[in-house]
């Protein structure tokens, strides 16, 4: 009850103001895209750049409408999204497990970390030639590459999160005679959550980067493929649409992550 009272006191006088502020911030966020669109429009109208290089926004919009109507865009987004989600899910789970294992045990760290760091240094795309020879150019290749992209930031951030748990909290756990499991469940994991979310966020970004990279090299569908195809055919409207689609999907995913994080960390002061 007390929690409610505290928030009510804060919100009671300011509810309309809070809403107005939120709307204002939403509108502010649109200003820069609008300005860019205007610049693009002007540049095309005035012919600052050749139309083959920078198509007019109206053409792009029409192409977008066609691609939506034919279901092409949804199809390619679907293909890419599926690859990202599967690869990311595997990479994130492995990274979480590996990060926790290395964070908790110095022995695991000693055995695994040096190799892992060397492994992480090799760019994801650098693995593709070797992997192509091993698994071919099918779905497996794409999933493995995306998994690797997500795995590295997830592992490193989870590891850092677990090592950064304040010794003061651990001392409380000692004083209360917590078992190993209680320490992990009640102290270490909750304290590491902000780091884990940073790992998820970077992991997802890397997953997308890897996806586009692998689709550029070896694919006949997906957003990365659209980019390559569009460039080769000089369909710059297609290229721009593929780029926009990646941006929008990434934006939505990041928003979803933010919400989840806030839900899990309700105990943090919510920023108005």
């Amino acid at each position: 009850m007390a929690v409610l009272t505290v928030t009510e006191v804060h919100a009671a006088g300011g509810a309309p103001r809070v809403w107005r502020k939120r709307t204002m911030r939403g509108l502010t966020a649109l200003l820069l895209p609008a300005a860019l669109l205007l610049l693009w429009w002007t540049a095309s109208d005035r012919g600052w750049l050749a139309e083959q290089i920078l198509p007019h926004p109206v053409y792009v919009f029409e192409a977008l409408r066609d691609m939506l109507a034919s279901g092409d865009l949804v199809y390619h987004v679907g293909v890419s999204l599926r690859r990202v989600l599967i690869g990311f899910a595997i990479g994130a789970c492995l990274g979480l497990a590996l990060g926790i294992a290395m964070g908790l045990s110095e022995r695991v760290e000693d055995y695994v970390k040096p190799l892992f760091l060397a492994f992480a240094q090799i760019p994801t795309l650098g693995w593709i030639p070797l992997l192509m020879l091993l698994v071919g150019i099918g779905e497996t290749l794409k999933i493995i590459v995306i998994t690797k992209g997500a795995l590295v930031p997830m592992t490193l951030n989870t590891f850092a999160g677990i090592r950064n748990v304040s010794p003061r909290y651990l001392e409380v756990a000692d004083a209360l005679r917590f078992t190993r499991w209680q320490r992990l469940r009640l102290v270490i994991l909750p304290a590491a959550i902000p780091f884990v979310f940073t790992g998820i966020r970077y992991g997802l970004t890397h997953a997308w980067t890897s996806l586009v990279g692998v689709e550029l090299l070896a694919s006949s569908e997906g957003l990365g493929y659209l980019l390559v195809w569009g460039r080769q055919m000089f369909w710059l409207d297609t290229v721009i649409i593929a780029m926009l689609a990646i941006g929008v999907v990434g934006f939505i995913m990041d928003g979803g992550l933010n919400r989840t994080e806030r839900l899990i960390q309700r105990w943090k002061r919510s920023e108005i």
Partner: protein
Amino acid sequence: MSATAHLAIQNVTRQFMVNSRIITALQDVSLSVAAGEFVTIVGASGCGKSTLLRLGAGLDTGHQGEIRHRGEPVRGASLERGIVFQEPRLFPWLTVERNVALGLENAAVSKADKKRLVDEHLELVGLTGFAKAYPHQLSGGMAQRAGIARGLVNRPDVLFLDEPFGALDAITKAHLQGELQSIWSREKITMILVTHDVDEAVFLGDRVVVMSPRPGRIREIVPVDLPRPRDRTSAAFATVRAHVLQSLNGTTSARDPRPTPADATPVLPRPAPAIAVAR
């Protein structure tokens, strides 16, 4: 209640390795605490008072000498020995209620009893209305009360308090000192409180242990034979306080004139605020 000391600290020495130099935090310290007694330990920074407390609570065990609690050697933390830290150290991801309940996480009590005990202790420290609040919603004083409730909820035999009111403003501090005293006299739990505040030490302690730094030793143990609750403005209180202060002054000026924070801090395992008690 028994003739032997409840908590017996005998010839305890504790050394730390700091930058490949051995620093003696405690040298040959002996102290006996009777059951139900309230002992306060006061001293300048670096006198090893917090080290002594941590050894007593079993959070640190790298000492020479012997520490016994009810005749059993202290070899690690125990639910029989509660501790309240200088910062409340509540887990920010748990509500106040859940934080206090952590003290019972490993106690052999039923779920219903657990709930009842937590509620009772929240009431004891005056936080009943804040059971569902998160630590960030509490003031410093309220958070420290929750820390005390967590230390008390398991009914430890001895409660160690490490400068529990050090970070609070004077008014909140005086208020909580009064509350702690009434909890102590009601519950009859042995309490050992470390502080750098002479007033607090005299107000709360049956005996005030004055420690001197480098190496940390007990300089004097001053009995406080004043009825409770004590009146800080009485002449008798002032006399005891003056005695303790004088003893403390001796600790810092006699041996080496000016304790530098740089010298004093590494003695403790964690950085302690460098507060000059004497001038």
